[in-house]
């Protein structure tokens, strides 16, 4: 154990990263403010998109941390800090949610009590879809995520100094509690923030759909960051292609999983052909939306699938970086496709471009999180008892 620790020399990330991060956030904030001034309604939807982008990545990473503990995986231990940095989005979600909560009535049709009164279906759904309960759910869900984020990462960081093996055991227990809670909270979050945009619509697989995209995009960020950081010499030098291969395989698996779930959702609705379900897909099949629907099949499934299919590709640093960025773009497209059709107003090119400032700010935010986290924490969990085995991991 001590031998491997010697090889890791902590290196701070370059300050240029901080500049890039702030620059992107600056562009995002200015563009976002412009978007709100120009067309507040559309901006609210675009903001939600940026928010969901961050949420899915953060909570996906949090899930991956607990998965490592529960499964007793050691290959991912050398890069667990990268996962933890990615998951550090979660505590900020509650603050980032405030603009959405302020724009409640613009985004969520069901939040208008007078509309619900005259709508039979919404009236039936009102015990769940009402503002008070919504706020309670948001509070509980974010509180749980934040709590588990702090518990898991605090123990992990403590271990760097104390080398206390017992902390791993504690984290395994915490993870075992978190995973079922995650299943419920992630479903609730996906239903609340995205499915309820069309309050008449329902799909029982929607939570799983969100989960697949969430873990996939988290993996994409983690893979990109791991490869980049390893190349820059910020991670342990004994991390090799075999670790890349595992990341590549997981990316590949979740690309497949997303395709499987997305198709399952589509096929059941298409086959049953019930008007109360099909209208959601019809809205995405009209006008220029049809191109995005079709593009999604290629961008989100066929292209990353083909890139990652062969074994050498899953270990190739260049291909992995490309595939990760591609998948992040695909995830944005997916969120765009999920959220924006509900916005029925007129859009101009300027509005569209300004809408992009929210994802830009999100990317800047992730970069800054990495920068600041790396300053106070080791980028390798040097005290983890599984680290040595993890570094020795070979196919």
């Amino acid at each position, binding site marked *: 154990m001590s031998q491997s620790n010697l090889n890791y020399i902590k290196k701070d990330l370059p300050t240029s990263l901080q500049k890039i991060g702030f620059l992107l956030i600056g562009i995002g904030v200015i563009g976002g403010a412009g978007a709100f001034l120009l067309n507040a309604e559309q901006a609210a939807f675009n903001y939600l998109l940026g928010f969901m982008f961050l949420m899915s990545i953060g909570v996906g990473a949090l899930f991956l941390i607990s998965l490592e503990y529960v499964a007793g995986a050691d290959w991912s231990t050398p890069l667990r800090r990268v996962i933890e940095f990615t998951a550090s989005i979660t505590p900020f979600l509650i603050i980032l949610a405030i603009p959405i909560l302020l724009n409640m009535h613009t985004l969520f049709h069901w939040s208008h009590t007078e509309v619900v009164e005259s709508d039979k279906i919404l009236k039936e759904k009102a015990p769940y879809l009402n503002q008070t309960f919504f706020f309670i759910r948001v509070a509980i869900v974010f509180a749980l995520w934040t709590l588990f984020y702090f518990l898991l990462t605090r123990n992990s960081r403590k271990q760097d100094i104390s080398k206390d093996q017992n902390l791993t055991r504690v984290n395994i227990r915490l993870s075992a509690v978190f995973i079922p809670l995650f299943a419920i909270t992630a479903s609730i979050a996906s239903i609340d923030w995205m499915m309820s945009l069309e309050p008449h619509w329902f799909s029982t697989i929607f939570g799983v759909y969100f989960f697949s995209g969430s873990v996939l995009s988290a993996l994409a960020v983690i893979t990109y960051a791991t490869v980049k950081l390893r190349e820059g010499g910020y991670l342990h030098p004994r991390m090799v292609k075999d670790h890349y291969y595992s990341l590549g395989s997981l990316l590949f698996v979740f690309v497949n999983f997303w395709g499987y779930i997305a198709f399952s959702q589509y096929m059941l609705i298409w*086959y049953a052909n019930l008007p109360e379900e099909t209208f959601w897909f019809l809205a995405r099949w009209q006008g220029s939306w049809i191109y995005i629907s079709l593009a999604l099949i290629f961008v989100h499934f066929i292209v990353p699938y083909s890139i990652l299919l062969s074994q050498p590709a899953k270990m190739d640093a260049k291909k992995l970086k490309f595939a990760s960025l591609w998948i992040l773009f695909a995830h944005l497209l997916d969120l765009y496709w999920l959220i924006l059709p509900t916005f029925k107003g007129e859009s101009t090119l300027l509005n569209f471009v300004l809408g992009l400032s929210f994802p830009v700010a999100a990317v800047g935010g992730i970069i800054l999180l990495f920068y600041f986290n790396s300053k106070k924490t080791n980028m390798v969990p040097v005290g983890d008892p599984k680290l040595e085995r993890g570094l020795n991991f070979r196919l």
Partner: protein
Amino acid sequence: MEQNKKVFGIAALYDSPNAIIKAAKTVTDKGYKNFDVHSPYPVHGMDKAMKLPPSKLGFVTLAFGLSGAAIALLFMYWTMTIDYPMIIGGKPFFSLPAFIPVTFELTVLLATLSTVIGMVTFFFYFPNNSHPIHDTNYMKSVSIDKFGLCIEADDEKFNEEEINKLFTDLGAIKIEKIFFPDKLNVKILEPKFIGLLLIVAAFVSVSTYLHLNKVLYLVPFNWMMDQGRLDVQSSSELFGDKFGMRNPVKGTVARGFMPYEYQGVNEPTSPLSNPYLPTKENLSLGEKKYNSFCSPCHGNLGDGDSRLRGQFPLPPSLHSSKSRDWLDGNLYHVIVNGQNVMPSYSSQLSREERWAIVNYIRVLQRAKNASEADIQEIKKEPVTNVSE
């Protein structure tokens, strides 16, 4: 005895995965090519230690997976759109989403089967299922808790002493010489084995037959025949007279049926008036029906010149003053009721058809007894329907 046997190779046993990785690496670096490693479970890092190139098996999987997809899609395309097009759930004949699950399954099926079969034939040299290291102590150990490495005798650098020394230097806990068996027999073709296969096949067939046809036999689905209603001509306890078949309630009128007031009466007291105007369609209907039903006895023109050659009493001419003076209702009455030997035509002719015939008889009557005025009238009109 050992001297006559041909040497297959020399095998060494090691205690730990680390030792075997080290051994494999050294043996590879020394330039040995024909050797193999045996371990109770997959040892991570072995491929690299042995410098194995990536397996080609993946290409077999890919090729068969893609053919699975193609076969499934083409097959469903052919059955569902060409051979037996059938509308299901109002979807188009070729509806891709419905075909995806089958395509997916067949892709996976062919990909996995071809991988296993490809592995067994290309890498394990099927049907050869025997190998010299089977039934050795070496094999026993590496199937339990030891890790083994065996250098084969056909390797270019094979030299017993050198190898023994190398193995010992690498910390082997036991070294064993492995020989080819006396005669190489392909056990799969042994009569005993084939006999066993036949017995298994017979047993499976018989027991399947007995299970499906005797033990688990289900009566074919015929519950649609069990219905609560009464069958024709059957009795019923429900009614006092035990008749299952009931008369309709008195005065019931069938849908679309117009009852005739003078049914069964000789002379209508006040004959009905004709509700149909002699329009062109009505008359051509009347002509058609008259020619089919009335003309055999009454003649094409109503002269009473029957075509029945005396087999039936000749009817009177329809141009008698009696018939001509009759009201339409009287003619109608004869069609419905019949008259003496003439039978009723109420079951063959609908109400509209009967009145159409009456109208047509009026045409025949007027044509046969045309007045001067009628002739002048006809002459005035241009003749259109005479061919030249």
